């Protein structure tokens, strides 16, 4: 049960990932860093972070448990789940 409870952390995590994909704290900031406005870099880094956390979500098995199913590969070595 503790596993599924820990899975609940993903809900606020996803909420934060969605909410701050828009660089709200940099509203009105016009600094240019390395050739691009700094808020564009925020966004680039943020989407990178999303991919990292999304893969953690999948690997942890929360992907399956979230749908009420048991993860097919409990050790979650790859992004697996398919039998090929």
């Amino acid at each position, binding site marked *: 049960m503790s596993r599924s409870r820990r899975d609940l952390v993903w809900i606020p995590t*996803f909420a934060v*990932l*969605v909410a701050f*994909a*828009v*660089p709200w704290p*940099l*509203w*009105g*900031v*016009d600094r*240019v860093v*390395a*050739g*691009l*406005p700094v*808020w*564009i870099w925020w*966004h*680039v880094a*943020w*989407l*990178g972070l*999303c*991919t990292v956390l*999304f*893969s953690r979500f*999948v690997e942890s098995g929360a*992907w*399956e448990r*979230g*749908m*009420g*199913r048991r993860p*097919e590969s409990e050790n979650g070595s790859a*992004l*697996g*789940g*398919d*039998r*090929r």
Partner: protein
Amino acid sequence: MTLGLSLGIVTGYLLFALAVGLVAYRVSEATAEDYYLANRSIGTVVLLFTTFATLLSAFTFFGGPNLAFAAGPEWLIVMGTIDGVLFAVLWYAIGYKQWLIGNRNGYVTLGEMLGDRFGSVGLRALVAGVSLLWLFPYVMLQQMGAGEALVGLTGGAVPYWGGAALITTFMILYVVLAGMRGVAWTDTVQGLFMLSVVWIAAAWVVSAVGGVGTATGAMLDARPDFGSFGGGTYTPGFIISTAITIAFGVTMFPQINQRFFVAKSGGTLKRSFVLWPVLVLLLFLPAFMLGAWAVGMPVEVPEGANVLPVVLNEYTPTWFAALVIAGAVAAMMSSSDSMLLSGSSYFTRDVYRPVINADASERREAWIARVGVAAFALLAFIASLFRPGTLIEVGDTAFSGFALLALPVICALYWDRTTRTGMIAGVLVPQIAYLAVVLSAVVGAVPTLPRTVAGGWDVALGLMVLSAALTVGVSLVTAPTADSDASRFAVTGD
């Protein structure tokens, strides 16, 4: 000579895409599952790119850079948030759930899934009808985009209607000849191709103007407001409501929604989900920055042309500019084909067969589907000649219309207590309200209802809330009908 070269490259590329589709068609079987879903056998790379290419429409490719050119590079943030993050989360919440359900019960369309769950042919036809309604402006958008692209590429030698007619012809040819397998394969080829050329294009243009820093500097000299985040068009209301309506709308697009049924395995969906944000960024960053940088470049963008072809014509050789436009037009063709194909399956399976003619033979059904596609594309072509708005405006209208379906569907997927009456109220009422808003802008006789309120908030966002409230509220006060069966949506136990 250069005109001939450009047109030759564009037509040649479209023919090449057609050939890929035909080869894929040869290896397919003649069943509905194969024609529409490629037998649920699509692997990660193809699923990823076929979904990607479906987003790779005129909206992204020409509309996006145009808006970045006119209003600033914040569009990158809006689209990245929509497609890269919010859509990915919905990909899991709606997409994976639908895949699990569809895999168990053999569904091909959203309407079929809901109709079966609630035991209602009416609901099935309603969902299909609503989807077809909003598909119309989006197909039209591709024709508008292609028309404007060829104007930009050829400096007006090819008229707007010519480009629109060219893509319409290829769209019809393609759908009639191939099927989902064909579309999925050309999408993959085109997705990879577009991703590569857009980076080459950006590198080429940036090095011609003296580097990224110089390009940004020139942009800021011309439009100092482009440097700071927010402002102008980009109010918080605009950013939030655009992000929400588009992301939810995308999941309900027939061609995207049907992708949720086609994956070979759950693993395919997982890998696509993980790679999605980065893939989206890789496309949007160069495409939209080129649009924004163009304000600082000594280029003249003619009225009604797209900015991207103009920039490419200025800084890259003719053949390369033509190749990028060809790729974009082909990608748009492919997107449109996915839409038309899914649209035709919605029409034949959810409207024609259950409502009009239950005893139609397979042959007749296939014939109806193809004639339907041709008629739909031709009507959209005619409507595209009137150019009722910018690419972004037309696209946004369609996205919002679809977005109104999303919350009732989520309700049905996750809440067993949802009833048929709740679903019908939650779908129908907001659609009628939104249609009134949209049509009031087109019909001259009635006063135009506002599309946005209080600084950029889209009324569609309010209607989405209404759709959820109606679905839940009406479900609570009505009893489930005898024909409905919540266990159809169970995904655990065998």
